[in-house]
Each structure stands twice: as C-alpha cells, then as structure tokens.
C-alpha cells in the first residue's frame, strides 16, 4: 500500500492588515514631517507669548541670529560674540547689496534663549543698528495655554 506523505502545514499569517497599518503610519509621518525647521537651533529655547502668530508671509531677506543662554550668537553656522558680530553681519550685507537692496530692507530675526540677559539682546540690536539694519523681529513660540 502506498502511504501518502503528509506535508507539514505551513501557517501563513495574513500580512495585509499589518501592511495597511504600516502604510498609514508612513503617510502620517510624511504629512507631519517638516524639513523647513532648519532655522531652529538646539541651544535656543524660545520664550513663549500668547500673542505671537506664525507669519502668514515669509519676511523679506531674513538674517537669523540665534542667541544661546551664555550669550553666544550663532549666524549661519558660525559663532560670534557681540564684539565680532559685525564681521558676520557685513558678510550678510554683502549678499544683500549684491541683490541691489538696502540694509534697511533686511529683517533681523532674533531667536533668543528665554534665560539670556536682555542686555545681550540690546547689544545685538545696537551692533545691527550700527550696520544700518533697522528691522527686527523678536521670535517667540506660541503659547496656547
């Protein structure tokens, strides 16, 4: 008599729901990911305010200054103090002039750490004013509480 060899049952799980969920998760993260946050800096924790609203239109020729808690100023990846900031600002102004614009057209965005001394921010504003810059934007995070 011929004996039939019984093959062992391969238990195959249905992967469809898992793949569905995974694709949904990917879609979720893709929608929420924001690569434009490159202007943020880990050394800066912004103060919060109930009145600030995200700008509806981007500011014209922004120059972003990050001010860390110890007073160091970060501009375009380089670190400055209030004494050396003029060098960095002049570099930015050279770009501005190449685009046939005046320093008064530029916007200095100051992203100051919440615990930095206010005098430090004033010094930065003074240095910028000496370089003919006059538009400033003090950045704060939106307080929804």
């Amino acid at each position, binding site marked *: 008599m011929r004996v039939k060899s019984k093959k062992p049952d391969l238990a195959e799980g249905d992967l469809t729901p898992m793949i569905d969920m995974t694709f949904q998760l990917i879609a979720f993260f893709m929608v929420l990911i924001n690569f434009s946050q490159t202007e943020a800096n880990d050394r800066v924790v912004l*103060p919060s305010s109930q009145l600030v609203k995200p700008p509806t239109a981007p500011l014209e020729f922004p120059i972003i200054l990050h001010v860390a808690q110890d007073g160091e100023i970060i501009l375009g990846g380089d670190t400055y103090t209030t004494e050396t900031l003029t060098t960095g600002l002049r570099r930015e102004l050279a770009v501005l002039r190449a685009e046939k614009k005046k320093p008064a057209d530029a916007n200095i965005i100051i992203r100051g750490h919440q615990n930095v001394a206010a005098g430090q921010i004033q010094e930065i504003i003074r240095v910028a004013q000496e370089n003919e810059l006059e538009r400033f*934007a003090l*950045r*704060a995070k939106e307080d929804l509480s």
Partner: protein
Amino acid sequence: MKIRREVEQEKHELNMTSMIDIVFLLLVFFVMTFKIVEMEGDFSIRMPLAGNGGQTSDVTDLPLKLRLRSDNDGNLTSMSLNEINLGTDFTKLRANIISLVGSDEPAEGDDGPEIEIDTDYNVRYAYIIQAITAVSGYKDDTNQVVKLIERIKFAKPRR
C-alpha cells in the same frame, strides 16, 4: 476510469519580504526624524539708529517709558511705567497701558503711541517678551487679538 489531475493550478505568490523591509525602513526613518513643531511668531520692531529720525519736539509725542529692574540672577524685581510702580505684575502693566492708550485700535504706520523699554542688563529675555506681550495687546473673550501699542523700542543697554 478516473483521471487524476496531476498538475494542479500553480499559485503565484508574491514575495512580500523585501517590500516589508523597505516599508519598515521608511517608517523608522520618519519616526526618528519626526519632531513636534512648536508654532513660532515674531514681534516686529522697527528701530533705526537714534539720531537718524527727526527729534520729537512735541511733549505729547514722547514715548511711554517702561523700566524693568532685576536682581543679579536676572529675576524681575520691579517694573515701572512712567514712574507708576507695577511690582512684577504684567496684568497690572496691561491695565495701565489700556488706561493710558485706550482700547481703540492703534493707528497704522508711524503714528500711534510708542513705548521705550529700559531694562537692567541682567533681566531674563523671557520677561522682556512678557512685557512686550502685555503692551502689544491682549486676547478678548472671543479670542481675538486687541492691539494696544505697536511701536516698541529699546533704550540704550545698561552695563
């Protein structure tokens, strides 16, 4: 005679392993790079170097003066608005601003009241933003922003 069908229909099964691998890689990438974004906004200040603009001759054009004092650690100890002592209460500051300026919408452009913030060097920046928030406006019952003073400037830094 019974004819056995030896050749059963072949089942074509897609190999999902490589796709799932890539999908999981993508998922891990997005999870790792995901950062909850906090909404940010700006307080705009137009502050040309002193002396460039015309001097104000009219006494009524003089800006309101807000003085902030702190201890050596940067903690706010007292505030005064045009010599009115406000303690450290920003709500009081806002109430005083409303009484001085009125709750009407400020004039656009270069008109409208102006405030000069004169602060000790050590005052923490967060207090400055709180003060600017208090003088710039408030949210009414319907969550609409009522603007108070839009022209803000800083006095010379105190060392």
